[in-house]
């Protein structure tokens, strides 16, 4: 076989050599290279324009609306320039925390399932379900929340809103956690099992710690995502000018309610949130509300940027740890 190949080789050598004229067209290739590489730089710069434009504009327009009352007082009614958005800030925190509580535990568990049983029917359905869920328009999820909680209960509530947000967050958590768990070398788990460890201990003590910072990133990104959402809240938490946790708690204590009862009472209230307030204020003809809307926008952007920066910090820390 070899000798045959060799003889063909000898036969073809003089014919074949010399096809490559390297110098030919070299200038043109070089020019094309530089042109297109330049273009990519240009579009990158171009893409940054709206970012700085938005942030700068919002900061300029929103800063005047920001004062202590903005954070500590309830709205004073349409047309009034005084008062604040305490209700929306507290509502956003409440909704975010609740939705995290609803989404994170099942999301994490499902992520483990997706990694350990990728090829069972449930595993396949799970990943497809998560993909579809992450693509379902948030307004549709709002409708779902409405049908699932609001309609049966007969009233809007923080619970309904946070469930809608949790549905929104769930796929994000599943997919990031899945990726992170998948990144953990398979034989780490095998290593633990080979020492005679039961599966759950291996997952809890070995796999999870190895993936935790990546998973944290997923949590934070999910939280960031939902804390800026408006659409699902339109038909679930609705909005509530008078929502104030402190007052609700005091009122509860005065009427002798236990702590869980107070909690239950709170989450049964309709609540406001920053994006919802922002949206509502922009629909108003009053300049005072428009002014406050910019303030809300600024607070919202800062809040979400903080979440994002925190998430990125986790990522870089994890990268550093992996290198270490």
């Amino acid at each position, binding site marked *: 076989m070899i000798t045959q190949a060799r003889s063909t080789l000898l036969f073809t050598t003089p014919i074949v050599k010399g096809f490559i004229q390297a110098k030919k067209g070299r200038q043109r*290739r070089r020019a*094309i*290279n530089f042109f297109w*590489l330049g273009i*990519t*730089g*240009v*579009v*990158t710069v*171009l*893409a*940054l324009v*709206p*970012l700085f434009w*938005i942030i700068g*504009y*919002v900061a300029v*327009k929103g800063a005047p609306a920001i004062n202590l009352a903005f954070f500590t007082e309830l709205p004073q009614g349409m047309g009034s320039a005084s008062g604040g958005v305490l209700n929306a800030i507290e509502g956003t925190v409440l909704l975010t925390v609740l939705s995290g509580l609803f989404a994170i*535990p*099942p999301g*994490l*568990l*499902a992520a483990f*399932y997706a990694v350990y049983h990728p090829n069972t029917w*449930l*595993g396949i*359905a*799970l990943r497809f*379900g*998560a*993909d*579809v*869920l992450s*693509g*379902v*328009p948030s*307004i*549709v*999820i709002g*409708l*779902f929340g409405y*049908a*699932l909680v609001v309609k049966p209960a007969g009233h809007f509530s923080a619970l309904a809103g946070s469930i809608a947000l949790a*549905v929104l967050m769930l*796929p994000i958590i599943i997919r990031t956690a899945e990726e992170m768990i998948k990144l953990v070398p398979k034989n780490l788990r095998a290593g633990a099992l080979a020492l005679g460890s039961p599966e*759950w201990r291996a997952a809890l003590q070995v796999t999870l710690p190895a993936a935790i910072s990546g998973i944290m990133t997923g949590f934070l990104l999910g939280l*960031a995502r939902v804390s*800026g959402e*408006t*659409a699902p809240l*339109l038909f679930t938490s609705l909005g509530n000018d008078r929502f104030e946790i402190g007052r609700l708690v005091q009122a509860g204590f005065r009427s002798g309610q236990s702590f869980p009862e107070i909690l239950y009472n709170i989450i049964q209230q309709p609540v406001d949130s920053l*994006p919802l307030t*922002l*949206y509502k204020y*922009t629909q108003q003809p009053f300049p005072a509300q428009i002014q406050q809307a910019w303030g809300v*926008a600024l607070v919202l*952007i800062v809040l*979400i*940027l903080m979440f994002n920066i925190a998430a990125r910090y986790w990522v*870089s820390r994890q990268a550093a740890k992996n290198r270490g």
Partner: protein
Amino acid sequence: MTLIAGASLLVVALMLAIGGLLIQDSTGARQVFGWSFLLPNLGSTWNPVTGQFQGWSFIYGTLVTSLVAILIALPMSLGIAIFLAELSPGWLRAPLGTLIELLAAIPSVVYGLWGIFVFLPAVVVRAGAFLSETLGKIPLLQVVFMGQIPSSGASRLAAGLILAIMIIPTITAVSRDVFRAIPMAQREASLALGATQWETITRVLIPYGLSGILGAAILGLGRAVGETMAVTMVIGNSLQGSYSLLLPGYTMSSVIANEFAEAVSTLHSEALIEVALILFGFTLILNGIARLLVWKIGSRTVEEARA
């Protein structure tokens, strides 16, 4: 074990429940209007008072704004992704990437707000005027570029452009990750054969990452299709008997957002839910395509890797 299986079941159940609810709650509307709800008909009506509901205007609005968005965002995002992954010096890479991704972190209401007060007057109005002057005169293109853009700028074009800005970070981030995931060995192989960097990118990296890039595009498209608030704030929310980009329009999500809370009749809200069902259907189809792509290309490589 049962716990994690339960959690997984929950996810699947959620998806089914959403679809099921939408189907169930839109039964009435479907019985009344049947397939005519979907008919491509510009003169379609949406009249809560008379109880006449047809969806085509919203479907068209959603499709055309998403299309504009993806057509603009995809090439730009690819360019940015290439710059980030292949060209930018190491110290610039992370901050630049973060900045681009921060675009995605800005809540859509803020986009809407900024759009109304800044972007529409400053950019869209001018671009609209320019387009109607130029492309609006060309016979076939006339259909989508005719008419005069409103002075506020609220139009399908505006929605498309805002959506483009909003989905650039998504597509960029995913396709940048795709480029970064391409083994260094592929670049080295090409460069070691004497290819230029651009040749390496177009002939090796893009083909290699094609499925991922397509996935990124579909993800972006999904975002665009489902986006609600920003679009609602800039599209003008009006039913126009026109295909023009330069005129105000309506999308499926906007109409739900605007009308559901104040639905005047059961039929009205059922019609809105049917719109939501169509939206859900879009999502399923897009996801299905994305899966198929990934699965087809992915499984082939897996098979090959095993062989």
